[in-house]
Structures are given as structure tokens and as C-alpha cells.
């Protein structure tokens, strides 16, 4: 187990800047998820940690060792590829034992360790097969076993669940969580699936265009997104955003001409913005329905089982609202919406960065 430190990593491919100034400190035994849309540089960061790419600038530390110039094999890590990258010409046993052989582990010890990790991943009865004879879920397990068998300090995973069907993905997600608890290696996990990120990560680093936008616990990221991008990337449906003006006299907010008291935590930030405008964000489940000063009309009702999802049009915005499943509302109904003060998240109207709270 070891901590990982990334120091202002830069990486470009020709004209494309894939990673810009990424610095992260990942604690020993921590499960960190790199989350972001396609092409934001998640895989590149992971490959930089693995040593499969060399950074143009910056350093990589693993367990207090500067490994920036070390080849992948000398960094003491295991990696699970998105395609699993199992060696098709070797049986499962030889796939799993590969890392042990490279380390010169004796045959008897190889068998023992492979058996051990095979039981951990429930692939013990597949050891004689070739990868082509396995299902997607089994291949995934073999890939994880192959990475884990060398007991690496660091486990790197690049979208390991993205090739599985929805049900299996749910199952394997829980399995990976269990595995991490049992093995305890420092894990960096790449995904573009926000639910996966929230459920797996001790902390989540949200990336956008090669930069880390926010690095925090899932709850913190969900409740206090660092900017509009994070708010709209996490959550299904994403956060709602309203244009608001700040009253020049008392610093209260005006949304669609309706006055709202400003949350006390933002008092200082708003004091400098009197007469200006801000962005008001609120999660769909926090918008109150039935009573409130905003007038709107229900456009669509989507019953999702545990909740109903409303699409409501107000004077200037389209708002997503989550309500209880027994709420009797239909398309065309007029509704009143309230924006509870405690759940409002304010952001700068231009930079779209969250305003500081006290």
C-alpha cells in the first residue's frame, strides 16, 4: 500500500493538450475515482501513473518514490484495462501467473498465489480455459485477478465495467467495493459513469479538458459542486440553474422577478455583487412543489418507480423536479415551485465557479 502524488502533470499529443497541470494527492489505501466526460484525459492520467506515457512536465510519486522515469514494470502496480487485455494465447492460469513469472516467483508459490486470488475472485474453476472461452464478466474477473496477484502497491483500473451489461455492472460494482476492502491497495479508478464514481470512490476527482475541476468526497461533490460543469455532470437529472440578479439594496436574489432571501452562507460573496447577477443552482429533489413563488406548467411527467420526474416550464427556465411517486400531477397542470434557501448553490455568472461560502 502506498500513497500516490501527482505533481503538475502535463501531457500533449501533437496539438491536443490531454492533461494540463494535474496535481493530486491520493492517500494510502484510498479508492479514488477519476470522473469526467469522454476525452477529458482520464485514461491519460492513469497511463501517466502507470508509466505507459511519460509526462511532458511534472512528476509522479508512488510510496514516496519518484517513479517518473521508471518503466511500468518497476512501479509496483497492477492495471486493469478497459478491454481487459487478456493474453489470448495463454490459459487463464498463465494469464494470472504472468506477473509472478516476471518477478521470478517459483512454480509452487505461483500455483498457491494464483489459487488464492482465483478464489477471491471466484474464477478457480476457469483456470484451464482460454480467454476466448469466457464471458465478459469472467474476463473482467480474470483481468482483476491478474493485476492483484502480484499484490501491487497500487491498483489502476480504466473503466473496467463499461463492457458489461447493466445488471452485471451493478453486481461487479459491489464486488469491486468488497475486493478493495479485503485487499486494501491504493486504487485509482477511471469512469465516466457518475453513479459508479459516487458509489465506489472514497474521493472523486472530476476532470474537464485535462484539468482537475474538483477533488473531494462524493457527497461533497454532489452537494457543493465547484462549478456549473460539475453540477450538471453529476446527478441524474443534473442540477437546475437559474439566472438571478442580486438586489442592490439588501443583497437578496431575484429569479424571474420574484424575490428570494439569499442564503446566509453567501452573504459576504453577495455583498460584492450587489446590482450584478449570479447563477443559482438547485438539485431536482430539493425544488419544492405545490407551494412557492415561482409559477410554472408541467410539461412532462416521468414515473421512474421510486420517484416521479417532472419537467416544468417557468417564465424563463425549464426545470427538472423530482417528487414522490404518489404525487398526482399530469402534463399541462399548473404548479408553484419553491427554492428552499438551504439548498441553493450560488455561482459566478461569468466564470460559473461556485461562490465562496462561509
Amino acid at each position: 500500500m502506498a500513497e500516490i502524488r501527482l505533481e503538475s502533470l502535463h501531457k500533449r499529443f501533437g496539438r491536443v493538450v490531454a492533461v494540463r497541470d494535474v496535481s493530486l494527492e491520493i492517500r494510502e489505501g484510498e479508492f479514488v475515482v477519476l470522473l469526467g466526460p469522454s476525452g477529458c484525459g482520464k485514461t491519460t492520467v492513469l497511463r501517466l501513473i502507470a508509466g505507459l506515457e511519460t509526462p511532458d512536465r511534472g512528476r509522479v510519486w508512488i510510496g514516496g518514490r519518484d517513479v517518473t522515469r521508471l518503466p511500468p514494470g518497476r512501479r509496483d502496480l497492477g492495471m486493469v484495462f478497459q478491454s481487459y487485455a487478456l493474453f489470448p494465447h495463454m490459459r487463464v492460469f498463465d494469464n494470472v501467473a504472468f506477473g509472478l513469472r516476471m518477478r521470478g516467483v517459483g512454480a509452487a508459490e505461483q500455483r498457491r498465489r494464483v489459487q488464492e486470488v482465483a478464489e477471491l475472485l471466484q474464477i478457480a474453476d476457469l483456470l484451464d480455459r482460454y480467454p476466448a472461452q469466457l464471458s465478459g464478466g469472467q474476463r473482467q474477473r480474470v483481468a482483476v485477478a491478474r493485476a492483484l496477484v502480484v499484490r501491487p502497491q497500487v491498483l489502476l483500473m480504466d473503466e473496467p465495467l463499461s463492457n458489461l451489461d447493466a445488471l452485471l455492472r451493478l453486481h461487479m460494482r459491489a464486488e469491486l467495493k468488497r475486493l478493495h476492502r479485503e485487499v486494501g491497495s491504493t486504487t485509482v479508478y477511471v469512469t465516466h459513469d457518475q453513479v459508479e464514481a459516487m458509489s465506489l470512490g472514497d474521493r472523486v476527482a472530476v476532470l474537464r479538458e485535462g484539468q482537475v475541476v474538483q477533488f473531494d468526497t462524493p457527497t461533497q461533490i454532489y452537494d457543493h459542486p465547484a462549478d456549473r460543469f460539475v453540477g450538471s455532470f453529476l446527478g441524474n437529472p443534473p442540477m437546475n440553474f437559474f439566472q438571478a440578479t442580486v438586489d442592490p439594496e439588501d443583497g437578496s436574489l431575484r429569479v424571474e422577478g420574484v424575490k428570494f432571501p439569499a442564503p446566509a452562507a453567501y452573504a459576504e460573496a453577495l455583498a460584492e455583487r450587489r446590482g450584478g447577477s449570479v447563477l443559482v443552482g438547485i438539485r431536482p429533489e430539493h425544488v419544492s412543489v405545490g407551494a412557492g413563488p415561482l409559477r410554472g406548467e408541467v410539461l412532462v411527467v416521468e414515473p421512474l418507480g421510486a420517484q416521479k420526474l417532472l419537467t416544468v416550464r417557468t417564465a424563463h427556465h425549464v426545470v427538472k423536479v423530482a417528487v414522490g411517486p404518489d404525487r398526482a400531477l399530469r402534463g399541462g397542470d399548473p404548479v408553484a415551485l419553491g427554492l428552499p434557501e438551504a439548498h441553493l448553490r450560488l455561482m459566478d455568472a461569468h466564470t460559473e465557479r461556485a461562490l465562496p461560502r462561509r
Partner: protein
Amino acid sequence: MTLRKLGLYAAALLLSAWVLVPILLIALAATTPREDLYRWPRPLWPERLSLEVLSSFARQEAVLRALGNSLAVAGLTIVLATLVSAPAGYALSRYRFRGREAVQLGILATKMFPATALAVPLAVAFIRWGLYDTLFGVALVHTALSLPFVILIVASVFRGVPAELEEAAMSLGASRVGAFLRVTLPMALPGLAAAAIFTFILSWNEVFAATLLTVNHRTLPALLVHSVVAEGAPLHYRYAGGLFLVLPALVIIFVIRRYLLTLWGVTVR
């Protein structure tokens, strides 16, 4: 069947006939007994078939020696071509470097240079270097002739092995060379074997350089050309020799045809 399809089949048939009919005629002539071959008028389909001509041809000492030479040259060519094309093909398939496209095109472009224009200078140079009339010299030329194709074939073979497999091996502790030897090479082996066989055929069938550069150490095609052109060998000898040359290539191509298709399919794209 649509008209379009009909046209397609007709064209394919015509093309096949274009290639196959001469081979068939040679085969027939080579297996016709000597007396029948010189009869006039000769029946289109011979009444009797026999291996007499072929076997007497194959028993000649010069033929046997030429056969051995051909095999040696082809073997040597395979070794030389592999030594050059494996690293070159690997580099083309794995690394992005400045001018990669140009290199790839340049390799093919060498094919556009007419070999006849090179003939005299080459012969002179080979005499000067002491390579003239040696099997190694012929193999050297055959290697040069085959490389443009073989490099591109080998590159496409390596491209067929995902780079991620090598990376996985490296992340598990293998060195770059180790990853190549343990993962890429075993997976590329069938494709590389096909490339080698392809090289073999190229060398086996090559006449021009072999004729030009040898006197005493002739390969089979060179021997045949020489005996026909310079010594006016009799008809039955020509037919037997022709069949002898065509057969191995035919058999090999038939065996590896699926490979060749995929190889060229990838390369030509």
C-alpha cells in the same frame, strides 16, 4: 440473379480462366507422353497421361542442382527479409514518428523503379564485390525485391496484435523486449509465417535477377530460361520445367490463401 451480379460472375470467370487455362495447358502438355507431344495434329485432350516426361526432367542432375539452389536462395531470402522487415514493420505499426507516412509510401515507391534499368550497374557492382554468381548475391537481390511488400505485410500483422496486450505485459513487470517476445511474437507468428511463405514464392519465381547474376549457380527459373533461350531446349523439357515452377507456388498459395487475403486486405487499405 440480377444482371449486375451476372456481369460480376462473368468477369470473375474470365479472369480465372485467364490465369487457369495456361496452367492447365502446361500441366496437360507436361503429362503427355513424349511421342504424343510431337504428333501432328495433336488432340486437344491427350489420350494418355504419363509422368514419364516429368520424372525424366526431375532426374537430370542440373535440374536437381538448380532446385537445391532455388531452395537455398529462397531460404536465405526469408532469413534476410525477416531480419529487416520484422523491426521495420514493428516500428511502422507501433510508433508514430515524423514522416511515417512518407516512409511507408517510400517503401512501396521503390517498386516503381524498373529493375531492368538497374541490371547492368548491379551486375558490375556484384562482380566488384565478389557477389557475382553466388547464391548469397541472388538472395540479396531477392530480399531487396521482396522487402517493399513484406515490410507492409509484417506491419499489418503486428498492427493486428493490440498494443494494449504489450502494455499489460509491461505493467506486469515485463520489459519492452520481454513483452514483445512473450506476447506479440507468439500472436503474430501465424501471420509472420504467411509472410515468410509469401517471400518464398517471390524468390522461387524470380527469373530476371537470377538469370542476370549467375552463371554456374543458377536457380531453377534461371536454368530453364537459359536452357530455352540459349540452348533451345525441346518442347517437352519446357513444359515439364514450367509445371515444375508453377506447382509449388500454386500449392502454397492454395494453402495460405485465407492468410494472403487478410494480409493484403489490411495492407492495401
